[in-house]
């Protein structure tokens, strides 16, 4: 059987995705293997393309805030933050300093939860489920804080145009500081685990190396790039919002392998802990929102860049003076990092593929943004709910 197949297709291709236990979101990878060795890799994206860029052109400025928040399920605040910052610049509205600080506070809390989530998933891909369970247990403390602070575990909706929705009370301050102390202790422990555990290092050290030159050529972003020695972090290069008052240090490693990616992300957490303490101890006083935010925004275009947990998020917003944006372009970090996986995959074992894929912290929802539902007849209208429902009913009626 096996002989037949290899002769017929020449290449033995292992498909990973769109549905596969290694991928928590849909994407389709094809790895051509020779035995256990990967010789070629291709990717097909777009399974979670939802037409957000087009959809944004049909919604008003306020509604879009929640639309972009749903680009990503993990770093939802970052997208709303980037969008709000861009729109506020466009409208020439100055956001009160307290609101800025709270935005950055939530962004850093989100970074912690995102990095811990990634850490657990990466450990799971390596087959180290105990580390996975413990890191996710600890991540819950941050999730609880976010829930207590904003009301939701994900999609916090902390932002409104011109400020934030809620205040940080003394009670919150206390719980956050306690949680940060606990997390710092745990992170130290995890850093020790990933840099000393012999069994784990067998799966990470020297695997998937991208050196500085390759990183530049492939255009890798975020922690993945910083693990290869690329000194690029929007929070440091172009401080925005409250990062001007609360500066952050850049964490850079040079090895460029999977281990370095673990180390960079975990060390970044220490910076986040420090920043959260600093913000909480020096919280500026003042309003949470501007009095009035214009419903129409004068014509113009703006670029807004923010460092998400996965790398630089780039928004290009253009207004034509109406209630809705004329164009909203979103560039997420995963898009660039995805190409790096394909380049790094060749020459590695099949067993390393999930680790490599996860090593960039891919976020397929971020990556695919999107468009309308289409059928093969060339009718490109979006289907309404009614039509979709009717289609479902007819489909099953035919079947029975």
């Amino acid at each position, binding site marked *: 059987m096996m002989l037949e197949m290899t002769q017929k297709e020449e290449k033995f291709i292992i498909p990973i995705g769109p549905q596969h236990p290694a991928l928590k979101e849909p994407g389709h990878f094809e790895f051509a293997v020779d035995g256990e060795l990967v010789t070629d890799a291709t990717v097909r994206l777009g399974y979670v393309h939802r037409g957000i860029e087009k959809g944004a052109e049909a919604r008003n400025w306020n509604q879009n805030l929640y639309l972009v928040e749903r680009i990503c399920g993990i770093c939802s605040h970052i997208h709303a933050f980037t969008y709000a910052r861009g729109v506020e610049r466009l409208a020439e509205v100055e956001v009160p300093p307290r609101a800025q600080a709270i935005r950055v506070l939530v962004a850093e809390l989100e970074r912690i939860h995102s990095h811990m989530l990634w850490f657990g998933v990466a450990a799971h891909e390596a087959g180290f489920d105990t580390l996975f369970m*413990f890191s996710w247990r600890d991540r819950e403390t941050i999730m609880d804080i976010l829930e207590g602070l904003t009301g939701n575990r994900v999609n916090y909706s902390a932002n409104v145009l011109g400020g934030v*929705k809620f205040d940080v009370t003394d009670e919150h301050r206390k719980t956050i500081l306690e949680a940060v102390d606990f997390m710092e202790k745990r992170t130290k422990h995890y850093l020790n685990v990933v840099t000393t555990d012999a*069994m784990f290092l067998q799966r990470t050290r020297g695997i998937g190396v991208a050196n500085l030159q390759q990183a530049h050529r492939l255009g890798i972003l975020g922690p993945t790039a910083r693990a290869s020695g690329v000194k690029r972090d929007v929070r440091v290069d172009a401080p925005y919002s409250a990062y001007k008052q609360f500066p952050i240090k850049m964490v850079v490693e040079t090895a460029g392998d999977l281990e370095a990616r673990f180390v960079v992300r975990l060390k970044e957490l220490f910076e986040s802990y420090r920043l959260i303490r600093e913000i909480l101890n020096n919280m500026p006083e003042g309003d949470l929102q501007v009095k009035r935010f214009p419903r129409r925004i004068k014509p113009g275009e703006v670029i807004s860049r923010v460092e998400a947990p996965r790398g630089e998020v780039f928004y290009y917003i253009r207004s034509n003076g109406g209630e809705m944006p004329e164009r909203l372009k979103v560039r997420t970090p995963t898009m660039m990092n995805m190409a790096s996986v394909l380049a790094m995959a060749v020459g590695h074992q099949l067993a390393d593929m999930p680790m490599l894929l996860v090593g960039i912290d891919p976020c397929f929802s971020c990556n695919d943004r999107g468009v309308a539902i289409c059928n093969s007849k060339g009718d490109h209208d979006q289907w309404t709910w009614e039509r979709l429902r009717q289609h479902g009913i007819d489909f099953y009626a035919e079947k029975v």
Partner: protein
Amino acid sequence: MKIATMFSDVVGSFWKKPATVQYPFERVEAPTRLRGKLEWDPEKCTGCSLCSKDCPADAIEIITIDKKAKRFVMQYHMDRCTYCAQCIESCRFSCIEMSDEQWELAATSKVPFEVSYGREEDLAEALAKFALADTVETE
């Protein structure tokens, strides 16, 4: 290079309370800021419809019965709601609130998700006029 670096965690957790709970039998209390089911107060509403305009999910409909007498009915499509609380921000007369208790909102049909708010007489009139959903919740 060490082995079994997680040893202390593994042994220690036998003496710790498990981090997980058996959900339907044991519930973790929701925080007070939780955004649950929307609640609307018809007395303060001026019918400006900003909530409905800013709702990203099209979940709110304000039905005007008599604009001068300030008689309005809100139809709330809970199945579309994303619980983002923009309506609370948009409302200048703070007639909208979100419950922190009603959040286990699941049902096997869509009927309980069509909620209408308003004064009783307004609701009756709206029901006659616009044929609202069958289940009507009164304030």
